[in-house]
C-alpha cells in the first residue's frame, strides 16, 4: 500500500550544528519578550552555532536568511522561536528542505501563542519563559533525526454529508471534476432549508426555482449517488483512505414509484408536514414536497399502522398501480471507501418557546420567520396568502421582532445569527409587494446589512414606509380577537411604545444541528464555543478541519446565507479536489520502530494500539511485534506502554522528550509546572488562549506530543526527579481523541501514577490531568492559573521528597 519516497536515510553521525532564530513578529513577540536577550542566551546552549533575532522569520527574507546560514555555517539542525508550529512549521520545513536539509531536522519554539501573547504585561517572566522554551527546543533539536515520509494513495471518491444547498454544490463541483460522489442525507429528500424558503435576499429570486434545477442535476448526475433517509454510522481510516458505513433506512417504497400520489390519498394516518413547518398536513405515506429529489414516496414508519411484521392496513399497497410499495424492505448498511469527506450538515432554528415573554405557542398569531416563509410561499398551505391563524384574515399591521435567540448572553445564544436582519427586510418587502396597505414595524437591536446589495435592500424597505424601531419588545400580550399588544422601549427616543398588531413575526436565529455531536465524534472535529464546527484556521484555512481530508461547507461551520454557503461549498470541493487530483499524499513519519532484540512479545502495545497497526509475528517464545506502517496514525501510545524500551516513536523519541523536560526544569524547577499537551486539542487550546490574549501565569512549560497517549509514566517521573512543582497531563476530551481512544490509555496511566505518588508519599495534587478542546482557550488559561496556584503551595521539603523518590529516573 505504501511506497517509499527515496532510499532510506544514511545514518549520519555528525556533530549537531544548530541554528537558532528568534522572531520578533513585529511587536507581537518583541513587545513582551526581550528577543535580543533570548538570542544572546541561546548562543551558549550546547550545539548552537548561530543564534540570531530577526523581525519576521516567516517572510521571504527571513527564510532566505535560514537558507544562507545553513549553507555558510554548515548548519544541520534549525530552531525557529516564533509562533505556533501549527501555523508555520510547514513554512520553515519547506525552507530548510530547499537548503538541502531533511525537514524533520527542524524544531519550533512557540514563544508567541504560548508566551508573549499570554504574558503581555510580564516582560521579565515572558523573557525567562522564552529562554526556557528555546532551550527545550534546542535540546530536542540536537537529538532530531532525518526521516523519510511514506506516500499513500488517495482514493478518488468523496463523501458529502448533508444534502442542503452547500452539500449539493460541493457534490456537483466534485462530480463535474470527475470524482465519484456519495451524498448522504438524513431527510427523505435533498434540498435542505433553502427549499423551504420563499424568496432569497437581496435579489428576491424565488428560492426553490433556483434550487430545484440544482437538485435534479444532482439527482441525474451519473457520478453522484444520493442516499436519502440515511445516516453515517462509522468512519475509520485517515486522509485519502476513509472507510465509512452508511445506514440507509428503508423507505418501504421502491424507486419504481411514479410519484402519482394515489397511495397518499387512501392512507388513513395524518401528521403535520415538517416541510411546511407543521402548517399543512401529510399522510404516513408521503412525498416531502413537490420538487423532492428523489421524488419517490416514503412511509413514515413511526406513523404507519403496520408495525414490525404485522400488516394491518394495505390500502396503499392496493392503490399502487406501479406495485412499488414493499413492506418487506429492510434497512441497509453500505460500506464505502472514500478519500475525502465534506461536512455540510447545516443548522437548525432556535425554538422561541423558551422566551416566554413573546408568547410563542401561547398566542396563535405569534409566528416564526420560518413559518412565515411557508405561509407566504405560493406552494405553501395557504397558497401564498398572508393570513393569521385565529381568524384566517389578512392582518392590518404586522410587527417583526429581531434577534430572537441571538445576541443574548444568558437566554438563547450569544452570537449573531447573520441572516435574520436581511431575512426580515426581505420578508417585509414581500408583504409590501403583495399587500401594500399592511403597515409593518420592525423592532431591532442593530440592523446588520453588511453584504453586497444588502444596504440597498434596507434603503428600499425604509423607502417603502417600513418603520424600524430600535428596542426589542419587553412583552407581547394578546388582546381582543387575537390582536397582539407589543410593549417595550424605543431606545433611540427613550420613549415607551405600546402598539397593537394583527400578527407578530419572531425573527429566529440559527443553532447547531441537534445531532451534530454524532458527526463531531465520528470525524473527530472540534466545535467553537457557539457549538458550530471549528475550522483549521479562521483566516487561512476556513474550510479545512483539524482532521485531514475532512472539509466544512455551509451552516455547519457557522450561520450563513445561501451565497456564503455556496461559496464555501465550492471552496470545500476545491480543497478536496486538490487532494484527490494529486492522487497520493505523504504521511508524517511518526510510526514506531520496534527493536526486535528488546521486544519480548508481551503484547501490551498490541492491546493499546487504537488502529490495530501492531501485529504479532512468530509463535511462543520467539513471538515478536511488527508495525503495519500504512495503518499506523502515529499517536505513540505504543511507545508509552512498552516496558522494555523496545519501541522508538519516530520524531517523538523518549530521548527527545526527556531532553525537553530536563531543559525546562534546569533552573527554578521548584516553581514550574511541567505540562504535556496533545497536538490536536490541548496544545491547540493553549494556542487559542494565546490568540485571544487570555493572560495566565508564566510558570508553565509545555511539551507537545501528537497524542496524550504518548505521555509515558517515565516522563512524569523524570519531571518529579528534576524537581517540578506540578505536572499537567492534558489531551482531547474522552471520546474526542484524534486517535480513536488513545487518550483512555492516558487516563489509565495517570490514575496508576496517582496511586504510585500516593505510595511514595508525594501529594497527588501535584499531578494534574485535564482535557481541553481546541476552542477551550479560556478554560486552559483558568486551569493554568489554578495549577500555578497549586505550585506555589508546594514546599521545598515536598520537592526534595519527590526528587529523592524518583532520583533514579
Amino acid at each position, binding site marked *: 500500500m505504501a511506497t517509499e519516497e527515496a532510499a532510506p536515510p544514511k545514518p549520519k553521525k555528525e556533530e549537531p550544528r544548530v541554528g537558532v532564530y528568534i522572531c520578533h513578529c513585529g511587536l507581537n513577540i518583541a513587545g513582551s519578550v526581550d528577543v535580543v536577550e533570548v538570542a544572546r542566551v541561546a548562543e551558549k546552549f550546547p550545539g548552537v552555532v548561530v543564534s540570531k533575532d530577526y523581525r519576521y522569520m516567516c517572510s521571504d527574507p527571513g527564510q532566505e536568511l535560514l537558507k544562507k546560514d545553513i549553507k555558510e555555517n554548515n548548519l544541520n539542525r534549525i530552531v525557529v522561536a516564533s509562533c505556533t508550529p501549527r501555523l508555520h512549521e510547514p513554512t520553515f520545513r519547506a525552507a530548510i528542505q530547499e537548503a538541502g536539509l531533511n525537514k524533520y531536522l527542524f524544531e519550533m519554539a512557540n514563544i508567541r501563542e504560548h508566551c508573549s501573547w499570554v504574558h503581555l504585561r510580564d516582560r521579565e517572566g515572558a523573557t525567562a519563559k522564552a529562554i526556557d522554551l528555546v532551550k527545550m527546543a534546542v535540546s530536542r533539536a540536537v537529538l532530531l533525526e532525518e526521516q523519510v515520509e511514506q506516500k499513500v494513495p488517495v482514493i478518488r471518491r468523496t463523501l458529502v454529508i448533508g444534502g442542503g444547498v452547500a452539500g449539493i454544490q460541493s457534490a456537483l463541483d466534485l462530480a463535474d471534476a470527475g470524482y465519484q460522489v456519495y451524498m448522504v442525507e438524513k431527510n427523505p429528500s435533498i434540498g435542505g432549508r433553502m427549499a423551504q424558503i420563499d424568496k432569497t435576499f437581496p435579489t428576491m429570486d424565488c428560492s426553490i426555482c433556483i434550487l430545484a434545477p440544482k437538485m435534479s442535476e444532482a439527482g441525474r448526475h451519473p457520478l453522484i449517488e444520493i442516499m436519502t433517509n440515511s445516516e453515517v454510522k462509522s468512519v475509520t481510516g485517515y486522509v485519502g483512505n476513509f472507510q465509512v458505513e452508511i445506514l440507509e433506512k428503508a423507505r418501504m417504497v421502491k424507486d419504481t414509484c411514479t410519484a402519482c400520489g394515489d397511495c397518499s390519498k387512501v392512507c*388513513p394516518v395524518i401528521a403535520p408536514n415538517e416541510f411546511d413547518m*407543521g402548517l399543512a398536513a401529510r399522510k404516513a405515506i408521503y412525498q416531502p414536497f413537490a420538487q423532492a429529489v428523489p421524488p419517490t414516496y416514503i412511509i413514515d414508519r413511526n406513523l404507519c399502522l403496520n408495525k414490525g411484521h404485522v400488516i394491518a392496513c394495505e390500502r396503499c399497497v392496493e392503490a399502487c398501480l406501479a406495485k412499488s410499495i414493499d413492506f418487506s424492505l429492510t434497512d441497509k448498511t453500505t460500506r464505502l471507501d472514500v478519500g475525502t469527506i465534506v461536512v455540510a450538515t447545516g443548522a437548525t432554528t432556535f425554538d422561541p418557546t423558551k422566551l416566554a415573554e413573546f408568547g410563542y405557542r401561547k398566542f396563535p398569531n405569534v409566528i416564526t420567520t420560518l413559518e412565515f416563509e411557508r405561509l407566504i410561499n405560493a406552494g405553501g398551505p395557504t397558497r401564498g396568502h398572508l393570513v393569521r391563524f385565529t381568524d384566517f384574515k389578512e392582518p392590518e399591521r404586522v410587527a417583526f421582532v429581531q434577534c430572537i435567540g441571538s445576541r443574548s448572553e444568558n437566554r438563547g445564544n450569544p452570537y449573531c445569527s447573520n441572516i435574520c436582519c436581511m431575512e426580515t427586510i426581505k420578508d417585509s418587502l414581500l408583504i409590501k409587494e403583495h399587500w401594500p396597505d399592511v403597515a409593518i414595524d420592525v423592532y431591532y437591536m442593530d440592523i446588520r446589512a453588511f453584504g453586497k446589495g444588502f444596504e440597498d435592500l434596507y434603503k428600499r424597505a425604509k423607502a417603502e414606509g417600513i418603520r424600524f424601531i430600535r428596542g426589542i419588545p419587553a412583552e407581547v400580550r394578546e388582546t381582543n380577537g387575537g390582536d397582539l399588544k407589543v410593549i417595550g422601549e424605543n431606545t433611540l427616543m427613550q420613549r415607551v411604545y405600546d402598539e397593537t398588531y394583527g400578527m407578530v413575526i419572531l425573527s429566529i436565529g440559527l443553532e447547531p444541528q441537534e445531532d451534530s455531536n454524532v458527526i463531531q465524534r465520528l470525524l473527530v472535529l472540534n466545535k467553537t464555543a457557539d457549538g458550530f464546527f471549528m475550522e483549521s484556521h479562521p483566516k487561512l484555512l476556513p474550510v479545512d478541519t483539524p482532521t485531514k481530508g475532512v472539509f466544512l461547507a455551509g451552516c455547519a461551520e457557522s450561520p450563513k446565507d445561501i451565497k456564503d454557503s455556496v461559496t464555501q461549498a465550492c471552496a470545500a470541493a476545491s480543497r478536496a479536489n486538490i487532494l484527490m487530483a494529486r492522487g497520493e499524499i505523504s504521511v508524517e513519519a511518526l510510526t514506531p520502530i520496534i527493536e526486535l532484540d528488546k521486544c519480548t512479545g508481551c503484547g501490551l502495545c498490541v492491546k493499546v494500539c487504537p488502529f490495530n497497526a501492531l501485529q504479532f509475528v512468530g509463535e511462543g517464545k520467539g513471538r515478536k511485534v511488527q508495525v503495519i506502517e500504512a495503518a499506523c496514525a502515529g499517536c505513540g501510545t505504543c511507545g508509552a506502554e512498552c516496558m522494555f524500551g523496545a519501541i522508538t516513536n519516530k520524531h517523538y523519541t523518549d530521548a527527545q522528550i526527556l531532553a525537553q523536560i530536563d531543559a525546562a526544569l534546569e533552573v527554578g524547577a521548584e516553581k514550574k509546572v511541567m505540562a504535556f499537551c496533545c497536538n490536536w486539542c490541548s496544545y491547540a487550546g493553549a494556542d487559542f488562549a494565546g490568540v485571544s490574549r487570555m493572560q495566565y501565569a508564566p510558570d508553565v512549560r509545555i511539551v507537545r506530543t501528537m497524542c496524550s497517549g504518548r505521555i509515558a509514566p517515565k516522563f512524569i517521573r523524570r519531571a518529579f526527579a528534576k524537581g517540578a512543582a506540578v505536572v499537567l497531563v492534558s489531551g482531547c476530551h474522552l471520546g474526542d481523541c484524534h486517535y480513536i481512544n488513545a487518550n483512555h490509555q492516558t487516563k489509565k496511566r495517570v490514575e496508576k501514577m496517582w496511586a504510585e505518588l500516593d505510595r511514595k508519599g508525594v501529594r497527588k495534587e501535584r499531578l494534574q490531568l485535564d482535557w481541553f478542546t481546541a476552542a477551550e482557550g479560556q478554560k486552559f488559561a483558568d486551569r493554568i492559573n489554578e495549577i500555578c496556584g497549586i505550585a506555589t503551595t508546594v514546599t521545598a521539603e515536598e520537592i526534595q521528597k519527590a526528587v529523592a523518590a524518583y532520583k533514579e529516573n
Partner: protein
Amino acid sequence: MVLEKALPEQTHARYWRKPLDIDSQKIPRGKVHIIDVRCKECGFCIEFCPKDVLEKSDKYNRKGYNVVRVVKGREDMCVACKHCEDICPEFALWIEEVKG
C-alpha cells in the same frame, strides 16, 4: 374536529399547530360491529388493532366470555383497516366503512 383527533398523539414538539388544511384531508372511517355471542375473549383484535380502538369489557356473553367492546371516546378513531375482521378466529366482528 374528528380529524384533529386523528393526528398522532405525539406529534413532534416542534410542530404544534393544527395544520391549516386538516379539514380537507380525507381519512377513511369505520364503525365497529361486534357479535357478542361469538366472541371467545382471545384478545387478538385488541392486541393487533393499530389504533387501539378495542378493549375487553366486563360484560359476559352466553358462553361466559368477557366480550370485546369499543373504547369509550375512541369510536371515531377506527380507520377501517379491517385487520380485526381478518384475524378474528370466530368471525365475531366486522367493520362498516362510513361514507362522507
